[in-house]
């Protein structure tokens, strides 16, 4: 829901949500601009996260450190996962997401972690083979 700065809502949660900002954010999503994009089952979530990081890396103004470096490093992680040259270090990824969420100057790089965290929470299982736990 809501474009890149929105939330990734699993189908089974849809019925529990009203279409308003408060309710979305209280459940850990974001309403964003409220458009609806459906992600087919066979579209890889690794690919989707890559797309999100790529978006913020492209759009980041570069002023704040966590935004400029964080989105680029996130993109690199998923580059490598896509190309199967390296697995995603889950712990580091989580720390990176918290760092961006709390540390970024503005809502671009600061909000990108939300959909990514949604994916990890609800669709983490399907990415298991791309990940390593410790690092």
């Amino acid at each position, binding site marked *: 829901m809501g474009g890149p700065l929105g939330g990734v809502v699993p189908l089974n949660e849809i019925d529990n949500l009203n279409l308003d900002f408060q309710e979305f954010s209280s459940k850990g999503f974001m309403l964003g601009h409220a458009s609806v994009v459906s992600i087919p089952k066979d579209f890889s979530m690794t690919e989707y996260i890559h797309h999100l990081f790529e978006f913020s890396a492209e759009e980041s103004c570069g002023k704040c*450190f966590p935004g400029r470096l964080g989105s680029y490093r996130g993109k*690199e992680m998923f580059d490598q996962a896509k190309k199967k040259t390296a697995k995603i270090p889950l712990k580091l990824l989580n720390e990176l997401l918290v760092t961006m969420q709390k540390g970024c100057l503005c809502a671009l790089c600061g909000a990108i972690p939300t959909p990514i965290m949604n994916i990890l929470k609800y669709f983490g299982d399907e990415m298991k083979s791309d990940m390593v736990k410790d690092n």
Partner: protein
Amino acid sequence: MSSEKRKIAYIDGKPYEIGTNHTSILKFVKSYVGEKKVPTLCDDPNLAPYGACRVCSVEVALEKDGPTKVVASCHTPVAENQHIFTSNQNLQDLRKNIVELVLTDHPMECNTCEVNNNCELQTVANDLGISDHRYNSPKQHKGIPRDTSHDYMRMNLDNCINCGRCVRACDEIQGSFVLTMSGRGFESRITTDNDMMFGDSSCVSCGACAHTCPTDAISDVFQSKSAAVDKKVRTTCSYCGVGCNLEASIKDDKVVAIDTPKETEVNAGHTCIKGRYAFGFYDHPDRLKTPLIKRNGKFEEATWDEAYDFIKKEMQRITKDHGPDAFAGISSARCTNEENYVFQKMIRAAVGTNSVDCCARICHSPTAWGMQQTFGTGAATNSTEDIYHADLFLVIGANPTNAHPVTGAKIKQQVMKGKKLIVLDPITTELAKLADYHIKLRPGTNVAVLNMMLHFIIKSKLYNADFVRDRTEGFDNFLKEIERQDIDQLAKVAGVDKQLVKEAAIAYATAKNSMEFHGLGVTEHEQGSKTVMLIADLAMITGNIGRKGVGVNPLRGQNNVQGAADMGCQPHQGAGYFEVADKKNQKFYTEKYGVTHPTKPGLKIPQMFEAAINKELKGVWIIGEDIVQTDPNSAHVIEAMNSLELLVVQEIFMSETAKLATVVLPGTTFLEKDGTFTNTERRVQRVNRAVPPLPGTKPDGVIVTEMMQKLGFDQPTYDANQVLAEIADIVPFFKGITRERLGKMGLQWPVKEDGTDTQILHTEEFKLGKGRLKNFDWKESSEIEANHKDYPLILTTSRVLQHYNAATMTRRTSNINIVDEDVLLIHPKDAAYRDLNTGDIGRLYSGRGEVALKVEVTDKVKEGIVFTTFHFPEHMVNMVTGHGKDEETMCAEYKVSSVQVQKISNQFKTEIQPKENQAEVS
């Protein structure tokens, strides 16, 4: 006070009071729990908060136990009842993770890096306990070629962390806008002037970017940020009167680099190219290293004893045969207070004449005199810091961005922030370009324009009647005289627009705080002293005196020209400005010095020249003044020097004047001596010896004292501290000064016995009681009256940023690679008439002499005016300048010389051969 409620906020649970200077959470926290508690990377206290690195993040709750939010403390205001958490685990993790990200794009070659052990990134990372990152083969900005194209600056962007401090320093401190953060996101990077090489950019080499850069991404050729030095010595710049505090890095008894200390009051962590980078002269191979005695027209090396004995014999012969008044001294405003004091003491007490003067004669003597006549004290009324409290600046005949760069940059910053600016100058200076009112008057008409301004203020009834009534005298007459002025006629002679002057006058009178600055464009005129007194009038009738952000503020040229005059290097006043013709004062000095004090006021520098040519003056002792290159009408000066029987010159280099000496004594630079300098705002600051004197040389105070002892005068062995104590005993406004009390930042005189100093003069009353309003009519300069017909252009001279006066010092540094000649500026109309194009060589001449100079055609100068500098002995521009003098003080009229220009060759042709050492042609 007590009715105002104290505001409290909590740091990690403890309450602290919010002060007025706590403009951010970071400042609040740092002031109470120390610098280290919250790390920073993009913050610099001298720059506006930015909020890029986010390592300064803290958690804030609006009430006790309320929900917290992470904010960057450097750009978040502190508010009442905030609960600030500085270092819980979450924050530590956040900071670590950010710094880890920084390390993913950093070479981590600390051991070979210039700033190893002096790197903010290294320190912050160490404090957080991280030394590496966990990311898998991250892309890095590595292998960017180092930019070594600049004479001073170095760029190594591999180490850049994109904090933007350099960009902000260049914009906010210096105001040169050279650096930019180009591109965005991961690709953003620092560029100079749209991707030029650093050396080709418009950089003015102030070094502010290098100083603030937390890594070695921007540094300088001296590696000034290296921690691999033996010690750092704090001292005071010996170039201009701004008086910047410097810090010299010493290795193996050599000065390897100069930077500014972090904590400074005068320069707020800034300097200019001269103070920071132009120090290479100090151990230049050209330094004089042994006394020289001229025999049969040739210098021969001598021991100190031989030199002293020679001088003693000659001095005693002269004074015996012709009396002490056949001897005179010219002191140096580049030397310390202590040295100036002992020098005038030697001339007055050991030789017995009041003929001692200094270069204030040819710069601000009209200021000192004029302000004494109107206020009672001949010094800046306010402090440099007041620039931040002024609403309008009136800059007359000064080019501070070149000549007083750090003060100039401060004024420029304020003007760019919207403060009003009036500039009176025949040249479109950097400030004039930004001015709301640039009154581009003809040189020599300051009095005309000031009379116009006074007239408009009076006519518009914008004067401050209360101030005039309570604090001044002579208003009735003043009013009559001002009303009588023929405004149209004055506008015509000055070549200015009446309406513009009127608007400027009204702006000056109606701004809340109007602060005046002036330079030698005021004083170096026939009516120099009168101009100063009219400026004082302007300040008095509008009440712009005696409080913060206002006043009359000369920009003193030399580092210690204020001090040289304070110490008595003037023929009519002794140390502390007591008139020597006054019996009471003679008695005072006689008691202090232990010998009868001479009673007759002595000769001023121009009178010395006359007296030498007339054979009345037989001997002169000069410290560190290159009068041949810098005084006007060089041929006349050379004739005077050649007429002497004894000329002693204390110098660091073989200057044009030293070449004419009988005895040359090798002195030292400021880096090799202790003492004090007094800057333009009356601040007495310590000069601390950074390195021992070069072998063979002696500090100037030592030389003078040893000579006094040779002459049999009872003067204790030279020790700067002891001399300062002696000065404090004689000069009333130095009463409370001791070396210890001066500390790091110095003290502004008058300093009371208990050590309290004075930022602003004349707050309650003037030294004279009431301020004296005085009137003067404009008068055409006699130079123009006599010579304008044959020489229809007016030459006015000044300096460039990179060089200092005769450039004796700056020519012996890399500054010479940046600017290496004097250039003549001429208006397009005047150029067209003479068929001159930029790059051509022109002959600049007057009835007194001629020089050949490269020409630049520009409308920076007014039609009918030509402009040049006088830095290079190859050109000896002062061969051309005139005899004119301020009527009161004999300050030379450098700013008005009638000249003519003629084309010699055009740009495509041969270079003309500059005459070999014109100074020797007598």
